[in-house]
């Protein structure tokens, strides 16, 4: 029996998905269901002075119209803490419809409950609201002079500023300097399934919420605090989730609004956000600007890195996506300064968006590196190699594993990098200018804080159920967990069923920070391994077992049969042992205690990205012709789903580079392109030939199986490789994303 881990098992939920049988949170059958629709503020700053709901209340089918005047109060608004922490994780420290103040455009101001969603939606348009409008800040340019340096960002997890050495002195003494400022349009996640919550009160203190989320337990804990109920009162179920990309990583207002509305009308309530509401209800990647100053010796060795970021946050929270973290350790640099500057504006608190921070921070660094390579006159890849750091430049500790130089080498081979003529505008194909570019990819290995648990139960027919509270939002985690459990138990994947998606199951953290599979995978691995060991222990202690008195260390399991390692003809199956001993099942709870973040090693995931672009010499149109991404993500559980994740990430990078931008109209304080027709993401026709490969690294530090995650590293560096390729093609540096054609006319 060949191991399942590292294979290409098809998605265990694939059949249900393609047949339309998966139950998403807005599809769970519930009797006596009512539908809620949220009404959003059309101004960005001010106060509600009058609100007339009478016509809406009279509309056909309407059960209730709730506003700040009659919606239930929340008990507490928990502090913002990333859901990786495993606790309550509200997306912002603000809950709407508690008073008459409007802080941002799209803020919920009313919720209509009716017998159908159409009637609720229509009644919402009959509510008359009068506002007193005050000046709003919705763009960085409106309030640069009000920037401040926060003490901490990211829910308090990261410092607002950091330094090592003397960056000012080092820059003054540098033989070569590159100084550049990069601007980034806001981005939205746009999963294909909008967020949805179905709230069912079974009793006054028993609530079930079917929710579209990356972390059922995070929703449970957040709802408990908001509603003032103990966690035992709340069950959160997430059968299938149609993508997230960070929009469902934190817990936003809608599940609690659904619960409050359901309590008000005494019926189960379903609340589905519209596509337009997805632009104002679950955070976004904030508008930002980053300034990079690189100092180097004439041979390219970096002596100083100064990296400042200015971004827009909400009135409530000091949020910035952590753009400075990975760049600060990408290369050896004895002198470093990183500072976040924030401007408070009239926006919802921004949030995690796939590769949160790395996507922008590494773009800035890797574009500056390209400029430095040109300034010094060496190959961009050679510049990276000269600055490769074998230890974490921040702590001086060794990497738990790296593989970066191997990634560079493999990517260069696959791409054909070494034939490159470094001169800009040196290649042409008809009307198209051809260029190539590269970038490094780094993403931190973030560890959950709390113990991660999974339960494994073997039945006496030799089949097993493995459970943990993780949700499947398209990453393939249920499939990978089936493989992990099968290998640990020594049985084929067909005999394993993984069950997840409920807060009643053993607690794991929200699947965020590319850590979902490693967190739950470690727990599943331990649970299944301990279950196997328990069966072996019983066999060697059983007088009737062929394995009686054997050394457990000398017993292995092959295809469900426990055998002596050196005499595989001696042994018995799990089923034989369990039948003989009258055991209907055997169950084990596995607990993985993650190592502390500072365990004597630098922990990061590495990769290399290369891209070839064609730029229409007259029309400025940029088309990406091919991309190569090579990554060292540690143990790969499923090559097929991991490959898909990495490729999807790279195409996200393509979108970031060329297309994705949410446009704010500062006069209205609202997004002007809040639809999938107007917010452009790449379509299949834009997707080039994408080559994805992985470099094996063995990592015994991060977790029992040595997994470092594949969910986000694919995004990092892809946009920089494309921008650098655009420069190589055209001789024009790009300092603003997305690179739309008018910038190249």
């Amino acid at each position, binding site marked *: 029996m060949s191991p399942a881990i590292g294979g290409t098992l098809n998605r265990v939920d694939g059949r249900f998905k393609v047949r339309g049988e998966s139950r998403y949170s807005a599809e769970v059958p519930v009797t006596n269901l009512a539908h809620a629709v949220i009404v959003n503020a059309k101004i960005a700053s001010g106060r509600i002075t009058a609100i007339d709901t009478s016509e809406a209340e009279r509309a056909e089918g309407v059960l209730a119209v709730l506003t700040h005047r009659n919606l239930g109060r929340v008990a507490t608004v928990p502090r913002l803490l990333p859901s990786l922490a495993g606790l309550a994780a509200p997306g912002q420290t603000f809950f709407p419809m508690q008073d008459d103040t409007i802080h941002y455009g799209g803020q919920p101001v009313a919720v209509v409950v009716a017998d159908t969603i*159409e009637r609720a*939606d*229509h009644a919402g348009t009959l509510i008359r609201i009068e506002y007193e409008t005050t000046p709003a800040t919705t763009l960085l340019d409106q309030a640069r002079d009000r920037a401040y340096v926060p003490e901490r960002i990211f829910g308090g997890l990261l410092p607002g500023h950091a330094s090592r050495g003397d960056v000012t002195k080092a820059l003054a003494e540098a033989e070569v300097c590159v100084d550049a400022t990069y601007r980034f349009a806001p981005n939205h996640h746009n999963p294909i399934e909008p967020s949805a919550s179905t709230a069912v009160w079974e009793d006054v203190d028993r609530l079930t919420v079917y929710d579209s989320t990356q972390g059922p337990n995070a929703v449970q804990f957040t709802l408990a605090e908001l509603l003032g109920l103990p966690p035992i009162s709340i069950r959160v179920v997430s059968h299938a989730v149609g993508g997230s990309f960070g929009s469902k990583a934190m817990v936003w207002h809608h599940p609690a609004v659904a619960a409050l509305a359901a309590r008000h009308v005494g019926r189960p309530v379903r609340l589905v956000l519209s596509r337009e509401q997805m632009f104002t209800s679950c955070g976004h990647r904030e508008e930002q600007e980053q300034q990079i100053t690189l100092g180097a010796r004439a041979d390219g060795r970096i002596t100083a890195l100064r990296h400042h970021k200015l971004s827009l946050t909400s009135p409530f929270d000091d949020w910035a996506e952590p753009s400075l973290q990975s760049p600060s350790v990408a290369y050896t640099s004895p002198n470093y300064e990183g500072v976040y500057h924030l401007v408070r504006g009239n926006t919802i608190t921004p949030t995690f968006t796939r590769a949160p921070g790395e996507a922008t921070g590494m773009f800035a660094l890797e574009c500056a590196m390209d400029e430095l390579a040109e300034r010094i006159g060496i190959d961009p890849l050679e510049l990276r190699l000269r600055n490769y750091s074998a230890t974490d430049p921040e702590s001086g500790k060794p990497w738990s594993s790296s593989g970066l130089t191997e990634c560079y080498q493999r990517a260069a081979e696959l791409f054909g990098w070494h034939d490159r003529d470094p001169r800009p505008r040196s290649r042409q194909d008809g009307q198209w200018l051809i260029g190539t570019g590269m970038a490094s990819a780094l993403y931190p290995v973030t560890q959950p804080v709390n113990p991660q648990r999974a339960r494994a139960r073997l039945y006496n027919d030799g089949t097993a159920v493995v459970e943990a509270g993780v949700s499947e939002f398209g990453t393939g985690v249920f499939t990978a967990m089936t493989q992990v459990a099968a290998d640990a138990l020594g049985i084929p994947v067909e005999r394993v069923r993984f069950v997840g998606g409920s807060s009643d199951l053993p607690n794991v953290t929200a699947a965020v920070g590319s850590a979902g599979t490693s967190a739950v995978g470690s727990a599943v691995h331990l649970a299944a391994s301990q279950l196997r060991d328990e069966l072996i222990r019983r066999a060697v202690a059983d007088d009737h077992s062929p394995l009686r008195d054997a050394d457990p260390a000398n017993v292995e399991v092959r295809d469900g049969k426990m055998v002596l390692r050196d005499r595989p003809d001696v042994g018995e199956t799990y089923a034989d042992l369990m039948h003989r001993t009258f055991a209907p099942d055997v169950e084990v709870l596995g607990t993985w205690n993650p190592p502390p973040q500072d365990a004597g090693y630098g922990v990061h995931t590495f990769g290399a990205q290369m891209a070839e672009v064609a730029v229409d010499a007259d029309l400025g149109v940029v088309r990406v012709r091919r991309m190569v991404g090579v990554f060292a993500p540690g143990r790969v559980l499923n090559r097929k789903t991991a490959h898909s994740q990495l490729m999807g990430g790279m195409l996200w990078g393509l979108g970031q580079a060329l297309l994705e931008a949410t446009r704010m109209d500062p006069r209205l304080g609202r997004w002007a*392109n809040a639809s999938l027709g107007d917010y*452009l993401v790449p379509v299949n026709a834009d997707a080039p030939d994408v080559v994805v490969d992985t470099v094996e690294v063995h990592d015994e530090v991060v977790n029992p199986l040595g997994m470092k995650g594949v969910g986000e590293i694919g995004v990092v560096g892809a946009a920089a490789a494309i921008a650098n390729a655009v420069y190589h093609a055209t001789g024009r540096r790009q300092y603003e994303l997305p690179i739309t*054609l008018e910038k190249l006319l």
Partner: protein
Amino acid sequence: MRPISYSRVADVGTAIGTVSADPESAFLAGGTTQVDLMRIYVEQPRRLVDINDLPLTRVEELPDGGLRLGGLARMSDVAEEPAVVRRYPMVAEALLMGASPQLRNMATVAGNLMQRVRCSYFRDVAAGCNKRAPGTGCSALDGINRGHAVLGTSECCIATHPSDVAVALVALDAVVQTEGPAGRRSIPIDDFFLLPGQTPEREHPLTHGELVTGIDLPPLPVAATSRYVKIRDRESYEFALAAVAVAMSVAGGRITEIRLALGGVATKPWRARAAERVLDGAPADTDSFTRAAEAELASAVPHGMNAFKIELTRRTMVRALAEMAQREGTA
């Protein structure tokens, strides 16, 4: 969506009778734009009359050698019709460059002509928009207007006409066939699309209850050497930033026949008559193409973010004409 009533009719007379009798009613064909606009309360009919069963889905030969596209012919069907592909390639190309395969399978050619603008302020009922709510002002003039028009604009409206195929049809002098309470009409396509002027809410000359039954393509040998060039941010499912429909004949290095129209840059599908005048009889060279493009764009008016469109259109016109001439020259 506001509550509606819905009925499905099987013949043209009943369709026209039902809609013309009720000022708050509308025809429903493919629905690919209309239903979206109803969901966001931009269009609020109380009654929808589904005309998908009407016998208007075919592409037919006309006695004069032209071709009639049934009003309800699906975009995807017309794009694959051999007679269209062979005799009017720019029409097939424009259709295939519009929308997405799924939308093209639903959307009709008449509906395509009738589609509403993509201006985000038109689609936002809380914003000022003279087209949606006359007299409320044009938010796009100083707003997010990268996709907006530079030709045919007024101080009341700068929204771009979004259709691709209409650009090809305007170049070909197609004729729109209608039937309404007052009988049948034939409307030259250039008169079918109205400039916004002071009345941007009026987009076409149809009366309420008047139905586009077909679109006639005239017999035009030059149309067999035609193409549609579309420049856009992404490769599919995206509206044009600039588009050119061109049909050209060249003999002895000179242009003997030219038909030219622009899309993505004007408030209506834009017949480039000034450019045609420059090109007619001129040498088929870059100099002529540049002069023609500049003549056409002399009246272009930029608004903030869309200023680049003038230069983009100039270059796209030169590109399209040069490639067409090259193809003609080597044919």
